[in-house]
């Protein structure tokens, strides 16, 4: 029988095969070969694309290079979303490998944040963890950690060290047994069709009368449209890490097992394929 620990591993070692191609209008000295890479779902685009940059720099002049950014079929990809989320949100149900266009010019300032260095990613990542812990434990756990513990979380992610990361992250996933779960579940629901970047509300894992909240309960509360009515066909897919958990999955369990390293449960609601 499979164990819950296996879920953590499977989730951590999720990879998306990606094909990076240089944007056609970029000026090159010779033709740029596409670059193939396995991207970790848990990580951030700008953190894992040094190789991509190096690859394309070989065919470009230094003066033509500005900050690197990516798009998929015209949608600029936000580096501060985890890669898995970007893929689920924009590219699920498309053919693999995921085809990403690489740009070195015309940085879309209105869509994307600048990412001059990894320390920006680290700051973003740590602030997400802190926000998540504020929701989960009133920040008690993260504040009790030392600086080096914070560093271990980040280094674990940066170096793709599952054990190193989870040795520390385990503490963030604990909760008093008598309470039966976190104070609030840190989650974000992303919609492709909406102007809002995402939905985030306070939501407890346990209802006031003591029963366990499920993924279905959460959606009913914050985005009821995503739940299919009995008689109609499914209009939306609710995707976490490329899978569609059943709506009766307990939210607390999802939060413990399917959260991203930033401790948020990133849920994509995407239109169901119409075939």
């Amino acid at each position: 029988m499979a164990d819950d620990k296996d879920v953590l591993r499977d989730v951590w070692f999720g990879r998306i095969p990606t094909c990076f191609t240089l944007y056609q209008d970029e000026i090159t000295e010779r033709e740029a070969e596409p670059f193939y890479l396995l991207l970790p779902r848990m990580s951030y685009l700008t953190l894992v694309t040094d190789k991509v940059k190096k690859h394309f720099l070989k065919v470009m002049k230094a003066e033509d290079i500005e900050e690197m950014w990516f798009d998929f079929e015209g949608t600029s990809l936000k580096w501060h979303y985890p890669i898995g989320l970007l893929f689920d949100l924009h590219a699920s149900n498309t053919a693999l490998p995921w085809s990403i266009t690489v740009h070195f010019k015309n940085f879309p300032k209105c869509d994307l944040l600048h990412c001059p260095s990894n320390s920006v990613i680290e700051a973003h990542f740590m602030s997400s963890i802190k926000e998540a812990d504020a929701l989960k434990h009133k920040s008690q756990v993260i504040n009790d950690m030392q600086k080096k513990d914070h560093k271990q979380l980040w280094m674990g992610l940066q170096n793709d060290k599952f054990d190193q990361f989870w040795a520390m992250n385990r503490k963030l996933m604990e909760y008093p047994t008598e309470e039966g779960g976190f104070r609030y579940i840190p989650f974000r629901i992303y919609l492709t069709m909406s102007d809002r970047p995402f939905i985030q509300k306070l939501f407890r894992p346990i209802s006031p009368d003591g029963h366990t909240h499920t993924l279905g309960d959460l959606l009913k509360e914050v985005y009821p449209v995503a739940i299919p009515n009995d008689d109609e066909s499914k209009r939306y897919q609710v995707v976490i890490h490329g899978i569609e958990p059943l709506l009766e999955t307990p939210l607390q369990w999802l939060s413990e097992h399917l959260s991203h390293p930033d401790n948020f449960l990133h849920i994509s609601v995407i239109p169901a394929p119409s075939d």
Partner: protein
Amino acid sequence: MPVSLLWAVDVYGRVYSLSTRGQQWEQCRDAVLEFKRVTAVQQCCWGIACDHHIYLNVHSSDVPIRYQEETFENQRWNPMDNFSDRLLPSDRWQWSNITGLEHQPLDSFFLPSTNWEWEGDWYIDENFGGEPTEKEGWTYAIDFPATYTKDKKWNSCVRRRRWIRYRRYKATDNWATIPSEGRSGPLPDPFNDISCGGWEISEEPRGRLSLWAVSLQGKVWFREGIHHHSPEGDGWEEVSLPGEVVQISCGPGDLVWAVLWEGQLIVREGITRDCPRGSSWVVVDSPNPEAGAIHVAVGDNVVWAVTKDNKVWYRRGINSYNPRGSGWIGMIGEMVMINVGLNDQVWGISCEDRAVYFRQGVTSNELSGKAWKAVNVPRDGDIRSHSSASSSSLHSAGCFFSGEVRAQSVMRACPSSPPPDPPPVDPDEASLREADAKSPPLALVLSPSLSGGPGDPQWSNVDLEETQTHLAVGPAGVRGDAADTCSLSSVATYTLCQEEPYGADEHPLWAWVSGGGCGVDCHSQLNWFNSATALSSSVQSMSLSISPAQTAAWRKQIFEQLSERSKREMDNFKHYEQAIEQSVWVKKGAMQWWRDWKPHKWVDVRFALEQFSGPEGNQDGILFLYYNFNEEKKYLHAFINEVTILVPVLNDSKHTFAVYTAERTKQRWPIRLAAATELEMHDWLALLSVSCCDSRGIQGPPSKQALWSVTCKGDVFVCEPSPSLEACPYPTPCDQMFWHQVGGHLRLVECNSLGVVWGVGYDHTVWVYTGGYGGGFLQGLASSTDNIYTQTDVKCVYIYENQRWNPVTGYTNRGLPTDRYMWSDATGLQECTKANTKPPSPHWTWVADWAIDYGISGGTDREGWQYAADFPTSYHGHKTLKDFVRRRRWARKCKLTTTGPWQEVPPIPLSDVTIIPCGAQSIVEPIPLWAISNKGDVLCRLGVTLLTPAGTSWLHVGTDQPFKSISIGGANQVWAIARDGSAFYRGSVTAQSPSGDCWYHIPSPVRQKLQQVSVGRTSVYTVDQHGNLWFRQGLTPSCPQGSSWEHISNNVRKVSVGPLDQVWIIADKVQGSHSLSCGTVCHRLGVQPMEPKGQSWDYGIGVRPLTLPLTLTHQPIAHGAFTVICLSPEWFVSVMATVKSLYVHVPRGTVFSIAFLCYS
């Protein structure tokens, strides 16, 4: 934790029991009478019914209570009639007991009471001291009080034979009446109180109990002769008293207290092994001079009392030397009665609400506990319509009623009557049904008066049963929208019930509780307490361990989708480059290292583990030890992927472990390290263990083909057989086999190749492998979340008190200068006093005080002494003129608590277990498993399959005497050795008849008592008590018993025959071996299908004693192909041969069963 029962009586005299695993009081249905009081021990429960008679309820067990009656038929030879029953006038009776002094014809045997039945008729015993006799069973002698032989000689003038018949106690799980007969006729007055205990006073006779009773006139009676084979006891003996007693309490040990009418307490003194009744009473004053005591309860080391004002008192200063204690301490809470159960846990009935309370936080360090907690579970009569209601309604009702929402919510719920969702049970119908259920008129009359207004405590009961059902239902019942509507229906049902005059007996009023059979302690997980906890624990179980939801659809879905996802997104793209290059990760620490060169000593070192990705993307690492030598910085390193085993080493002062690599095994010099604290050592061990497993790609639970072994210290190791093990012609050398640890502590482990693994602890507790991994110090990621349970083990530490006789003072502790220490270990070489002897390691804690051990072989006198002419000789249990020295053994129990992927198989403790090597091909096919209980009963486990490796129940296989060794081999051949040293073959064991039909007595080799047996595919080997190894000749399918024993070798301690008839032994006194005590592994060479005996021994290497880290002592018992005695290269090569043949010849269904023996 095995299931055990808490017993209680309510005010109507109904007896209930509450299982430690259950969540409701089960009424004892067969109790025809109402009961006043009950007193429970683990094996039975005694009670006083309203007719003032005493009743006994013996819990049924897979092993029945059987008693063997025997009598002897005597005959004398005369020239006329040959042997006949015409005896001389001076002779004994024709039918007599063994001594001939008592006349015992067959028809003089009667069942002791109606609670017994005969198992069969009388039959002749044809086993004479381990030797089968002639058909008639006669044994011959020259004259009557003489020695008998089984052979008739020319001068045999008399003969006798033994008849045996078994009777069986049949009244199990039934209240059997105990006649109120004293030694001289019926007792004058009826009983008023009863208390059972005293099982710790003596091991002999087995299952001995003390039963104390108080009559209405205040007299105290002691029941004689209660033990395992006589659960009812013999008769009542009056105990003289200083006053009139109202109530009495008897602990598991020698503590007996009683309460006098006047309110003082009396303490029994002089209770010993030889005199369990004690000798005298001592009066102790009531805690409160104004209000005398009305109730007392004692345990192992505690006394609790209740005074007339319902105050609770705890007696301080109680110990085995001072049963009186020193003073009273007033406790919080008002109780009408108190009972002390197992582990000194305290149970009470509150004065206020008559509920049963449990004292929380009672530990051996804090015997008075912390707080009272109400046991709040429904009774089986209370679960009425709801059990038939739908799960969702139950669940939601639970939510409605939990916490503060009580009466209000009911009010709110009432108006919205007809539920839109069709309720599973119509409210009226439900209450009707419920009324039917409440048949006892007593309840009908009384119940209305008990029902209070809304908000009364009975609601708490409602909460509870609902939430508990919720708990059982688990997440399956968690259904969003349906819940609201359904809940209304169930609430409505409730409201109606409340108004029903019959249904209101909600709040149980308890009168008596007895925890003497209830094996809980302060760490036990009980689901008995108030609703809020029950709820949160249910949530907890949902989100953390998911045990009830293991099979939940959502979970399965996630697993399936994740593996689909991996397939979809990764399988075809493996050739893509990874985005993140693996870098090096270093963990550092400070440790001590046992220096490689002389003088060996612990030196401080810096320790670092560097982890990185290997060339093929696999995890790897290097261990570095930095030390200073002659002011120079040096280091030592070991590659993680070369580490073969990490062994925690017991050491009473340091937290040490040893790291072996193949090279270091050859050198016999592991890297020995000591961490500063236990925690640090465990952190390192866990990290290194994970790192080693990662580097070898081992993840998750051991495979079904894994090799299991146990070290001499009880640590459990597994080894994954790699495909290259069978590679030809250059297989992996065995010193490169990698063993990793699994949590748990076992004395013996047996497995088959199908993944069924059983273990037996040092305390004979039986454990079955659950399929998990990790546990113990392997926490977090190295451990599975599920299938890890608490495991405990208990063993004894022994020391010896030695004395020498001198003409002036007799035996004293003043020995000769050449003598051993007066307090020593078994060898006498090491001084071991009571004070300086520590538990084997810091993980073990003492759980009892030093006690004299009367069970030592050779026997003892009444004070436990054994006598001998001089010290290093054999001891006997009585003093003779030639004896100048004596010794006695003291034992102290220590306990280990750990975790591991093991679940207890209660309740019968085992001493040996054997699983058939090959077998079941389908998951539901039964796997034959045989065992011997620690009492010597032969047992056959039913229902063992791949799906249910624990099986379902034991089938007792009757024997005429206790057994000690058993082995099952190919084609269901079961061989066993009895305690008298004779061998038995079990006939007709097949899949259809798993227990076979009868025992065939196989004569032992002449004048030898057999000790151990091992069965392979076709070979049967035994070892006798003198270390001779015997091979059974002439085994054929038509004659599975064989024809004769052939002597193979001497100086053999243990034999193990593999599934391909490979023979391994542990031999003593092998030439060249330094050690006679530790044994040598030898492998039989030249074993061929046509030559099952083989030709010669390949001697392995003996083990030097006292080099602890070098000796991983595993020893095979049954089919074991593996015996790790010493990590020597030679040995590994030999093992390799076995592994290879196993793999080459038996691709499936091979068995590796490995056990071990502890060498001190």
